[in-house]
């Protein structure tokens, strides 16, 4: 019986490895992850603006219909978000409507972050407890959703938007949605 005790670490590791490996094994055939929400209307939500910044607007489902838009989930504590920030700003400069969902962030921290790095977002919803991110199927920050004029999620970018993704995915998609 005592001998079995020594096998516990190996068995635990096996269990963890299996838990992690199974989904990967199933998914490895495709580079692009399907999102459960693709081509479905964005989940109902209403988020308040960032506390202490009266000049900014919150974000709700109704804001997503009428024209194509980009919803970027970000956080001040997330380094990849900072890395992709110039791309997000460029989208706003090119005239696209960019909204933000601020993921699990203290209001002063995100305020400071926006002051420092610029605020390209037309509206920002403060998702302090990540409840909306959960509905949207956000697995990590940053993630970016491309929304058509009927408020449906059409495409999703997981992870930071690189210049390549910007040029090869986001721009073509947004031009398509704007037609």
């Amino acid at each position, binding site marked *: 019986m*005592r*001998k079995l005790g*020594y*096998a516990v*670490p*190996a*068995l635990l*590791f*096996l269990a*963890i*490895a299996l*838990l*992690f*490996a*199974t*989904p*990967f094994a199933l*998914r*490895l055939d*495709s*580079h692009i*992850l399907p*999102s*459960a929400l693709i081509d479905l209307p964005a989940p109902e939500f209403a988020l308040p603006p960032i506390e202490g910044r009266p000049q900014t607007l919150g974000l709700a489902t109704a804001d997503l219909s009428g024209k194509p838009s980009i919803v970027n989930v970000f956080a*001040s*504590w*997330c*380094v*990849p978000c*900072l*890395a992709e*920030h*110039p791309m997000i700003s*460029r989208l706003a400069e090119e005239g696209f409507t960019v909204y933000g969902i601020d993921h*699990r962030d203290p209001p*002063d*921290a995100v*305020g*400071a*972050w926006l*002051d*420092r*790095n*610029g605020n390209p977002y037309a509206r920002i919803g403060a998702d302090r407890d*990540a409840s909306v*991110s*959960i509905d949207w*199927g*956000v*697995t*990590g*920050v940053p993630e970016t959703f491309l929304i058509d004029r009927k408020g449906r999620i059409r495409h999703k970018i*997981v*992870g930071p938007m690189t210049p390549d993704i910007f040029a090869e995915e986001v721009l073509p998609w947004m031009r398509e949605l704007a037609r």
Partner: protein
Amino acid sequence: MERGVGQAMIVELGHFALVLGLMVALVQAWLPLLGAARGDRALMAVAVPAAQTQALLLLIAFFALMHAFVVSDFSVANVFNNSHTAKPLLYKVAGTWASHEGSMLLWVLILALFGAAVASFGRNLPPELKARALAVQGMIALAFLAFIVFTSNPFARIDPAPLEGRDLNPLLQDPGLAFHPPLLYLGYVGFSMAFSFAAAALIEGRIDAAWARWVRPWTLAAWACLTGGIALGSWWAYYELGWGGWWFWDPVENASFMPWLLGTALLHSAIVVEKRDTLRAWTILLAILTFSLSLMGTFLVRSGVLTSVHTFAADPARGLFILGILVIAIGGSLTLFAIRAPTLKSGGLFAPISREGGLLLNNLLLAAAAATVFIGTLYPLLIDALSQGGDKVSVGPPFFNATFVPIMIPLLLALAVGPMLAWKRGNLSAAFRRLAPAAAAAMAVTLLAFLLAPRGPVLAPFGLGLAAWLVVGGLMTLVERTGLFAVTVSQSWARLIGLPRGAFGLALAHAGIGIVVAGISGSAWQEEHIVSLKTGERLTIAGTVLSFVAVTEGDGQNYQYLRGEFVQLRGERILGQMWPERRSYPVTRTGTTEAAIDTSVLGDLYLVLGEGDESGAYTVRAYFNPLAPWMWIGALIMMFGGFVSLTDTRYRVGAPARAPSRAAVAAAAAAE
């Protein structure tokens, strides 16, 4: 064109050396093992030249890549993606390991250098142990080199070569971050040595005090480097990210913190193996787990899988390779453990109140702390992986504050007591008597903190009290061992000089934690002001007036800057000037903020220049971070303590066992 051809040759030479290194690793991974199994000395001896050749080849590869960075050879994809001709030289050199590919090369180079050190200086190691440990090192090198050569080749070319590079992410162009990865890797790879020795001991079926004496210096060196690496990373986050935070419990930080916690436990449990010849299987397990976490730290951070599982799927070849290496290394070693550990002779039981009892408590609490961080880090990923993207959870600082902190407090309280207990049978009340000065200091500091800073969180003064307990408790170990106040000063002095370096290392490392705790507690009193300010206006923080004098623009080597000029005043007396900056890097179209930090013993005045508006007002954020510099000074002291212990002749790698000097014998006798 002559020069161009020469450069091309150097890159090819590096690539060739890398592939050759892979071949050598293949030899090193199994011939010595076979030799040890057959008792064939000649085969076992292959390990030594193999390890040395390996190190030489990887040095060639590494410097070839560095050369490509320094001369900005953009025909190399890695250089093109991470460098630029206008980049300062320091960051061209550091660019060698800033990318995924380069950092992997650095990792395996450090591994090879350590292996060569064991091969060259480990003459008094038992030949079987040496051959097997080097073979395990060879296997690790084989895995890494195959990963580099097949999925992450740093020497991959672009044809035609671009004229200019894409530049390095400006956040990474920073002296703190230039040295952060090498230190971290020295730590991670150092633990590979403990792992290799553990695996070798399991294959051999023998572990004894001599084994522990061999493992300890490597663990100690790894621990000291990792301490420094983590501190450097935290310091960088503090001054570069621009809101005065220094630890975010984010997965990338946790990935380096977990091996540190378990490595600290390993460091202490190896002492028990060495002195009391017990806790053997546990120590082996710790060695395996510490390195397993280091591997995860290396791979998962670089692959980005910790921020989002999906990064794995983004590059299936790499993801699968990483998964494979992790499963073989961790699963393989744990299986070996499951089979062989029961055959290890188990040591005797021991009294709970004793030095070894204290070290066991340290181990249990550190392991629990590591498990907490592990769960907090991987749980969200696990839920995500299991639910196929359905359910999501997020684990943040509240989780860690509620679970990690309660484990650390008893650990820190016991930390001062442990070294006061004797081996085999300790006397708790005597230990507390000896610690009376530490307890008095703790109470005095707590009271003083309550009186001086009545506002603020209740726990913070207790944190400072705990810090005093640790610092004075750490120093009391030296007082105790030198018999200061009990014998004459000159006698104490003689004993102090005769003390083994390890005693100083212990006192420094333990006191260093106290200083870190003080720094952490101080942050509870942080003061913050965010205002919109025009030039000529003032703001007041922590009794200091900051007058906003001017804003200037200019060009740095590869960026443009906007610099605010502030004058610090107390009353009308000028104390100094501060220049917070915003930089923008045209090549990557990104910017950074450079906070102006004025450091004093009491804390940091931290100033950040934000965006300006049409009216000429700028958002200015000013913080006063009490005792913040203490955190890094404390970590530096801990690291220094580790290195001081390392110079202890008892642990010198490869030094023949020398008779200790007479003074040391006397001191040791006095201390027992």
